[in-house]
């Protein structure tokens, strides 16, 4: 049947294969976005408080060790974490082999963001997927040598409260011990304080931290993530939602076009099915013929294309290579649904 109707078969198979490819690529992007949004959700659930720095005189701050130790203590009790995204090792061009870094302080981070698959037990570091081949054995912070022990999965993205999704593919991600915090350069230390994220803090804790920083000239305005973050990230969520809706719309159109074409073909084949039934074809024979045609149109070529795509995504280190597998699963379910529908249609006309 598929051979006899080869122009239809070829056109439908090509159309569906193309749609599957586009969907796979779109899904790769959506899955990355979803990981970021999940990070945001974790922080909301922990009633996280973040800070916006405010510099009234444009002067460099000099926060006292007491406040830094206060933050250290919170981090060690897993009631806070902090990061340094931009200012680490600015005075050393060879720091981390010249690669950009993300320095993380806090054992709570792997618990908040398990998808990141960070290295276990600080101090340790991991390289981004796209600098995997480069030989960086260790990084040194305040005289502490931190070994680079693993490579992060491709497409790993850190949810940073300041910049939302921070891609890690080209960064060295360092889990530093809190004991180095007081030993950091002033700019590094200032960023670490300004980026502090307090988890389930009481008002007294927030007050103590903010006033300690203010005494050193670093004025921090606290924000509760649960209240402000939804507004702040509304745009990102809207974009993601639009993307998903657009993709679903596209999928729906392709599905509708395919279902109507397939059913039209089945109707044209009705006479052939009747003749076959007349001469002894059982319901199983008819089901197999329909299944064979649908598999040739909507399953086998697409599964081959998607398998090749999975291999390609794995080889190029693209994020979320499993996206093509999800599309494959959707395709198999569509095939089963359509097969059932077509067999029912044909049998109903007996």
């Amino acid at each position: 049947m598929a051979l006899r109707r080869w122009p239809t078969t070829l056109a439908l198979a090509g159309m569906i294969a193309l749609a599957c490819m586009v969907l796979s690529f779109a899904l790769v992007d959506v899955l990355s976005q979803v990981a970021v949004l999940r990070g945001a959700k974790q922080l909301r659930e922990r009633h996280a408080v973040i800070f916006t720095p405010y510099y009234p005189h444009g002067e460099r701050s000099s926060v006292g060790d007491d406040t830094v130790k206060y933050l250290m203590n919170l981090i060690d009790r897993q009631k806070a974490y902090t990061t340094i995204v931009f200012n680490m090792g600015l005075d050393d061009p060879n720091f981390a082999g010249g690669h950009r870094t993300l320095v993380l302080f806090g054992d709570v981070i792997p618990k908040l963001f398990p998808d990141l698959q960070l290295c276990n037990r600080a101090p340790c570091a991991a390289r981004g997927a796209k600098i995997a081949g480069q030989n960086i054995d260790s990084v040194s912070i305040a005289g502490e040598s931190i070994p680079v022990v693993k490579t992060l999965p491709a497409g790993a993205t850190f949810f940073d409260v300041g910049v939302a999704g921070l891609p890690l593919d080209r960064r060295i991600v360092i889990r530093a011990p809190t004991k180095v915090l007081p030993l950091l350069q002033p700019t590094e230390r200032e960023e670490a304080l300004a980026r502090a994220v307090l988890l389930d803090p009481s008002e007294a804790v927030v007050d103590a931290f903010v006033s300690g920083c203010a005494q050193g000239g670093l004025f921090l305005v606290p924000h509760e993530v649960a209240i402000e973050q939804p507004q702040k990230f509304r745009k990102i969520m809207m974009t993601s939602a639009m993307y998903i809706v657009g993709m679903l719309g596209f999928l729906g159109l392709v599905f509708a076009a395919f279902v109507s074409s397939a059913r039209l073909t089945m109707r044209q084949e009705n006479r052939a099915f009747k003749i076959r039934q007349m001469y002894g074809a059982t319901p199983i024979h008819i089901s197999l013929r329909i299944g064979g045609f649908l598999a040739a149109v909507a399953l086998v070529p697409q599964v081959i294309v998607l398998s090749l795509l999975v291999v390609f995504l794995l080889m190029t280190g693209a994020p979320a290579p499993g996206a093509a597998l999800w599309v494959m699963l959707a395709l198999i379910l569509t095939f089963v649904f359509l097969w059932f529908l077509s067999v029912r249609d044909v049998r109903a006309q007996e």
Partner: protein
Amino acid sequence: MKTILEARNVSKVYGSGRMQVMAVRGVSLSISAGECVALMGPSGSGKSTLLRVLGLISRPTEGSVIIQGEEVGDDEYRRARLRNKFFGYIHQEFAIIENETVERNVMIPLQYANPKPGRQECRSRTRLVLEQVGLGWALKKNASQLSGGERQRVAIARALVNDPVVVLADEPTAALDGKTAQEIMTLLLSIKERGAAVLFATHDDRVAKQCDRILHMIDGRLGE
């Protein structure tokens, strides 16, 4: 002569409620081996429906069909096996599959035969039966390229390829011109020589007169 096909008090109702149509009403008949029977009646009298019920294509609403002394039940797989082994069908509208070769059209009953003949045997039987109906030359032709008369010959070849016991022909010459219709009739009557019974549904006197027995059907009821 031995009775090979029998209908006992067969009725067939289509639809339900106010839309109910009783196409066949309590028909009983029997057909013997090698017999040619004409089923005559106006359009809508239930001839085609009775043929479909006798040929196990439709199930009777009431009554039963008996083949070689055994009642045919509701088991679809048994019915399919009997359709393949016992019957050949010829329709008014040359029921053939377009965009398929003549050979593959004729081979269809052999595909579902049990045991299924080998590929070589299928081919040789197909070639033989096509030669018998005068279409040996059209083996590899696409069925859609043939004329009406040639298509009907393909349908006859397909009906005969599995050596059926009964051939059911529903208005086989209705869509053909006079000369071609007579050629097709001659061919259909020759089926008797193979030992098979032939049951024609027709409203054409000239066709009916060539049969051994004529049954009249009016409003779903039968009378000799």
